[in-house]
C-alpha cells in the first residue's frame, strides 16, 4: 500500500495470528468512539463556545493508536501519553468528567486548573502528565523502566510521541539510554506525517521513523496506525518483549492528522487529496466494518455505541460545566510538598 505522500510506505501487515478476545474488540470500538466524540465536543463545540481557553489539540483520525496499544495494559503498567492520545486517558480510567473539567480549567480537572488540555497525569492510574517540550517524556519513560528493572517488577511503560518529536535531542538520549539499559519500554510513534505545518521530509531524511530503531539497537516495527488490530498486535508483541526482559521496542504507527495542528489552524498547507485519502481509511469506520463483518456487532449496535458515548459526554459536560474554578489563591499551593 502506497500513501499519497511519496515518502511514506505503509507496509501491509498481516492480520495478527491471534485476535484479541471479543470483549477487547468491542471495547476498542467504544474507546475510539469515545475519543472521537469527546474530542469533537472539545474542539468543535466547547472551544468554539469559548468554554475552553488557550490551545486545543486533538487526535482526530489517530484514535486507533492509543486505543490499540493501551487496551491490554495492566493497572500496574505506566503510560506516558503525548498530546494526541486521548484514548490512553480513557482506557487507564480517567473519567470523562475529569477530562472535561481539565479542559474547562476547573478545580476538578486532572491538574486542578494548573495546566491545560492534554497535560493530564494521575499516579492512581499510572498516567504521567505530558510537558509541552516534545520528546521530554522519552528519557522519563526510560527511567520508569529502569525503576522496574531495579525492583524486579513485572511492569512495562508505554511512551507516546509524534514524528516531529523524534527530532528532539531528548528523544535520542532517551531511546539510546533505554536501549543500552534494556528496560521494559514500548515507544510508540504516531507518525501523522506532519509536525504542525512541517511535512515529514523536512524533518528527517529517512522514510520511516522506525528506520531509526536500528541505530539504537532496538527492534522497530511499522504498522498501519489506522487499523486498531494491527496496532494492538504490534503493541502486544512489544509488551511481551518488554515483560520478558528483552528490552524496548519502537513502534511506528502510520496515520494522518485529520484536523489542523490545533483548533486555530485550518491546515491550509495540507493538500486536500491527503485528507481524502486518509478519510477513506478512517480507523473507526474500518473497525466497525470489521466487527460487523465478523458478526460481532450490527450496524445499529455500532450506532448505539456512538449514541451511548454521546449520552455519557452530555452528562459529563453538564457536571463539568458546573464544576467550580479553582480559588485564585490556590495559585500559591503545592509548588513544594506541603505534608
Amino acid at each position: 500500500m502506497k500513501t499519497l505522500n511519496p515518502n511514506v510506505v505503509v507496509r501491509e501487515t498481516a492480520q495478527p495470528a491471534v485476535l484479541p478476545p471479543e470483549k477487547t474488540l468491542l471495547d476498542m470500538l467504544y474507546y475510539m468512539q469515545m475519543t472521537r466524540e469527546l474530542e469533537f465536543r472539545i474542539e468543535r463545540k466547547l472551544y468554539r463556545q469559548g468554554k475552553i481557553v488557550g490551545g486545543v489539540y486533538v487526535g482526530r483520525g489517530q484514535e486507533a493508536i492509543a486505543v490499540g496499544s493501551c487496551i491490554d495494559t495492566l493497572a500496574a503498567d505506566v503510560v506516558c501519553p503525548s498530546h494526541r492520545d486521548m484514548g490512553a486517558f480513557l482506557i487507564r480510567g480517567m473519567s470523562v468528567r475529569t477530562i472535561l473539567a481539565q479542559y474547562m480549567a476547573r478545580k476538578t480537572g486532572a491538574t486542578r486548573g494548573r495546566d491545560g488540555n492534554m497535560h493530564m497525569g494521575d499516579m492512581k492510574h499510572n498516567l504521567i502528565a505530558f510537558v509541552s517540550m516534545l520528546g521530554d517524556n522519552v528519557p522519563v519513560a526510560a527511567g520508569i523502566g529502569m525503576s522496574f528493572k531495579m525492583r524486579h517488577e513485572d511492569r512495562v511503560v508505554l511512551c507516546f510521541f509524534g514524528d516531529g518529536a523524534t527530532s528532539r535531542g531528548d528523544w535520542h538520549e532517551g531511546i539510546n539510554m533505554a536501549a543500552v539499559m534494556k528496560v521494559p519500554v514500548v515507544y510508540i510513534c504516531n507518525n501523522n506525517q506532519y509536525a504542525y505545518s512541517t511535512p515529514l521530509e523536512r524533518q528527517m531524511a529517512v522514510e520511516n521513523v522506525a528506520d531509526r530503531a536500528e541505530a539504537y539497537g532496538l527492534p522497530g516495527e511499522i504498522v498501519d496506525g489506522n487499523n486498531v488490530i494491527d496496532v494492538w498486535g504490534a503493541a502486544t508483541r512489544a509488551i511481551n518483549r518488554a515483560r520478558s526482559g528483552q528490552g524496548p521496542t519502537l513502534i511506528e504507527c502510520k496515520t494522518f492528522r485529520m484536523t489542523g495542528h490545533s483548533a486555530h489552524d485550518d491546515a491550509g498547507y495540507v493538500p486536500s487529496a491527503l485528507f481524502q485519502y486518509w478519510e477513506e481509511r478512517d480507523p473507526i469506520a474500518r473497525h466497525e466494518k470489521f466487527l460487523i463483518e465478523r458478526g460481532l456487532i450490527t450496524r445499529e449496535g455500532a450506532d448505539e455505541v456512538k449514541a451511548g458515548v454521546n449520552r455519557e459526554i452530555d452528562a459529563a459536560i453538564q457536571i463539568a460545566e458546573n464544576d467550580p474554578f479553582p480559588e485564585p489563591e490556590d495559585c500559591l499551593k503545592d509548588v513544594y510538598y506541603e505534608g
Partner: protein
Amino acid sequence: MALTTYVEAIKQGIWEEMESDERVFVLGEDVGIYGGAFKVTAGMLEKFGELRVIDTPISESAIVGAAIGAALMGMRPVAEMQFADFISCAFDQITNFAAKCRYRWGAGVPIVVRGPSGGGVHGGPFHSQNPEMYFVHTPGLKVVCPSTAYDAKGLIKAAIRDPDPVIYFEHKFLYRRIKEELPTEDYIVPIGKAAIRRKGTDISVITYGAMVYTALDAAKELEKEGIELEVLDLRSLLPFDKEAVLDSVKRTNKVILLHEDTEIGGFAGELAAVISEEAFEYLDGPIRRITAPNTPVPYSPPLEEFFLPKVADVMRVARELNAY
C-alpha cells in the same frame, strides 16, 4: 496613517533588515510555509525564498547551534523559538556556545534568538513563561524586551545589526493589542536605553514588557489621588540603562520594581542591588517589588489572573510607599 501592531512591527523590522542585508535570514519551526505560529514571518518564504526562510525540524538546540555556525561565517541569523518557553531546550547552545565565543577566541556570534514570552492568554505553564533572567545572568548575551510597536521594530533591527548574540523576548499578550503609527524611514532603538513612559515626581516604577501598561494604568488612577508615578520602561535588560534608573530614583526617592517574571532571582533583585548600592542616600522608603509569585504559570483563568501582577497591586503598593 495606518497603525502598526506590535507583531507586525517585529515582522517589518526583520523584513527590512532582510531586504537591506542579504546576510540576514530566518530559521525555526513552521516559519516558512506557515509563516510562524504567530505569523511573524508570514510572507517571507514567498519573498525571500527557502534558502533564507528555513523551516527546521523540532530541534531548538540545533536551531540555535546552526544559527551560531552561520553567524560565525558572517551571516546574521534570526532564530525563532515557537514559544519562548522552548528556549529551555536551547539553553546550552546559547549560554555556552554563543555567549562565550567572543570572550574565548574573539569570534563574534551575531545571532538573534527571538520568541513569544509572557502570560495573559491562558497558555499554561509551558506557553507563558518569562525566561529572561536565565539569559540576563549570562555574560556575553544581550537581552531585550520591547513593550511598544515602535520599540519592537527598532529593537529587532538593532538586535539583527548587533555584533553579539541578542535574545529578543516579544510579549505575546501585546502582539495584536498594541498598535501605533511608525516612522516610514529606517530607525533603530539602541539596545541598553530605557524610556520614560510617564514623567512623575513621587515614585519611580521601573518595569518592562507588558507590565509597562499595568504601571501606566495604575499611574492614571493614582493621578486622581494626587500620586504621581514615573514609569520607566527598561526596554533592554542586558545591558540595562543604569543611568536612567538611578536618575529616576534620585528624582523621586521612592521606587517600585515591577515585572511579570517570578520573584526570586527576578530582574527586580538586580535593580534593587544597584539602587541600594548606588542611590542609597536618595531613598526615602523601602524598595518595593511587585512580581509574579514563585510558582509556575497556572492555566485556569482565576489562577492566572492571581499570578499576574495587576494594576491594583501597583496602586496598593504605591499608596503604601507614598504614605511612608
